[in-house]
């Protein structure tokens, strides 16, 4: 365990060196937030509520979802592709830690840094600057953080699985785009599933992606409590673990492919 903590600590510190990047993008993020608020205000018009949400609840949803999107960072596909192409993957195979866990620790450090230095300032701006609603209670805020962490776990394992395509195809960019597309659409990150046509919502409900955005943000809003909350958190953990195991199996298959090519 100590070695994973150390790996995470290193990538955390590495992020601290590049923090200027985020602040450079900060004005653009603020602008995107203003545009989102305007969009939902125009859509609601004089409607008192839609999909069970009032306008303040909906803008809060959109802003928190955007803050989460700016927080999560997974660039696994180019990384794995580069390692497979350059042969660096052979070195990764020799390491005393499994590649999947090595990456998880690395990405966790990055995202922990983003949690502190992106999600918190963005959350502050959302609440103070845009009048977004606060979670109904401290406990609910805590559950939101836990749900966001589990959402991170699902996303990591999904992107890890996608990145393993590098063992079979020369250029994984199509997979990179495709996976982002699926996530953006089915996670409720932009338009919540409540506004989907019923048949499409039914499809989305059977996929793990809603647990990356819609579920955590719903927890933030206090729309998920009690047994539903516990059930959701368990489902999140279950999906994360299931994807992790599939990733592990596919990694095994991929490694056989590497051996065929030789060093």
């Amino acid at each position, binding site marked *: 365990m100590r070695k994973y903590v150390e790996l995470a600590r290193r990538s955390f510190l590495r992020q601290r060196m590049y923090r200027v*990047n985020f602040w450079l993008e900060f004005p653009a993020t603020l*602008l995107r937030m203003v545009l989102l608020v305007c969009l939902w205000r125009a859509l609601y018009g004089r409607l008192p509520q839609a999909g069970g949400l009032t306008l303040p609840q909906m803008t809060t949803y959109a802003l928190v979802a955007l803050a989460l999107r700016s927080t999560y960072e997974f660039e696994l596909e180019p990384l794995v592709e580069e390692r497979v192409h350059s042969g660096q993957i052979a070195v990764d195979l020799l390491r005393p830690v499994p590649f999947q866990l090595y990456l998880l620790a690395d990405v966790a450090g990055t995202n922990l840094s983003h949690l502190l230095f992106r999600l918190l300032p963005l959350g502050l701006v959302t609440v103070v600057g845009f009048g977004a609603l606060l979670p109904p209670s401290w406990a609910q805020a805590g559950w939101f953080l836990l749900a966001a962490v589990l959402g991170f776990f699902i996303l990591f394992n999904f992107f890890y699985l996608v990145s393993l395509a590098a063992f079979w195809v020369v250029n994984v960019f*199509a997979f990179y*785009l495709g996976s982002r597309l699926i996530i953006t659409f089915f996670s409720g990150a932009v338009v919540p599933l409540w506004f989907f*046509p019923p048949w499409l919502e039914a499809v989305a409900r059977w996929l793990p992606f809603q647990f990356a955005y819609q579920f955590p943000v719903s927890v933030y809003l206090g729309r998920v409590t009690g047994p539903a909350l516990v059930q959701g958190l368990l489902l999140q953990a279950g999906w994360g673990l299931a994807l992790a195991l599939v990733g592990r199996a596919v990694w095994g298959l991929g490694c056989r492919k590497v051996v065929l090519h030789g060093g």
Partner: protein
Amino acid sequence: MASAVRSARLYGLLLLADVRSRMQYRANYILLMITILPTQLLTLAFVWMLVQRFGRINGWGFWELAFLNGLIRVPQGIGYVFRSVMFVENYILAGTLDKFLLRPRDVLCQTIAERCNFASFFGEAVPGLAILAASAHQLRLAFGALDVLYLAAALAGGTMIYLGLMVAQGAACFFTLRGSALRTFMLTTQEYTSYPLTIYHPLLQLLLTFVLPFAFINFYPAHHFFRPGPAPFAPWLAYLTPALGAAVMYGAWRLWRAGLARYQGAGS
């Protein structure tokens, strides 16, 4: 002028070489184009769901919004072919730019040729045209010769605005060595250009018209066709798109020259 023609020819050759090399892995390349397409339709799907739920947005129905969407797809699809110009800092940090400077050819030309992204032309610009055609058909737009001419001029102008902004962002890298907020804003264009300008706060309308002129790429030309309400600022702004495109391109080119003159290497 002669050097511009020479650069264009050189770029054409490099582009062909790039396509040829990518076609060595044909299935992969075609897969990429196929994946870009639904990425472009994603915004349209969201727009459709929102119109289904909330009705017309400030007087714009789904097909009007689709037309608005097509008008940004074409310039963006063409612009993204030259995507690498937005990431000049990568070339600065890797020392690739020094290599460019040593060659007796234009640096901008070499920068855009370093990584061609021709797939986005077929994956985005061509479907954009199809979206335009489909929505014009659905709306039963009676296109006269003048309308077609105007549409062509607006698309050309919009493409020049987009390209100009991309070069400006690339030039900003020379000053900041890290890119600028403009890049994030350009990579998420579809998030805000897919809706009519009139839904935004007046200050934002001002910003998207006179500071970052994205509204000239699709909003004003689309408004010119449908007029679902009074135009923000002035109705004749719709005619400015082509001229503005040329002006933005020229300004960006000057900024690029100034940035390049200022460049001193990353010290690596």
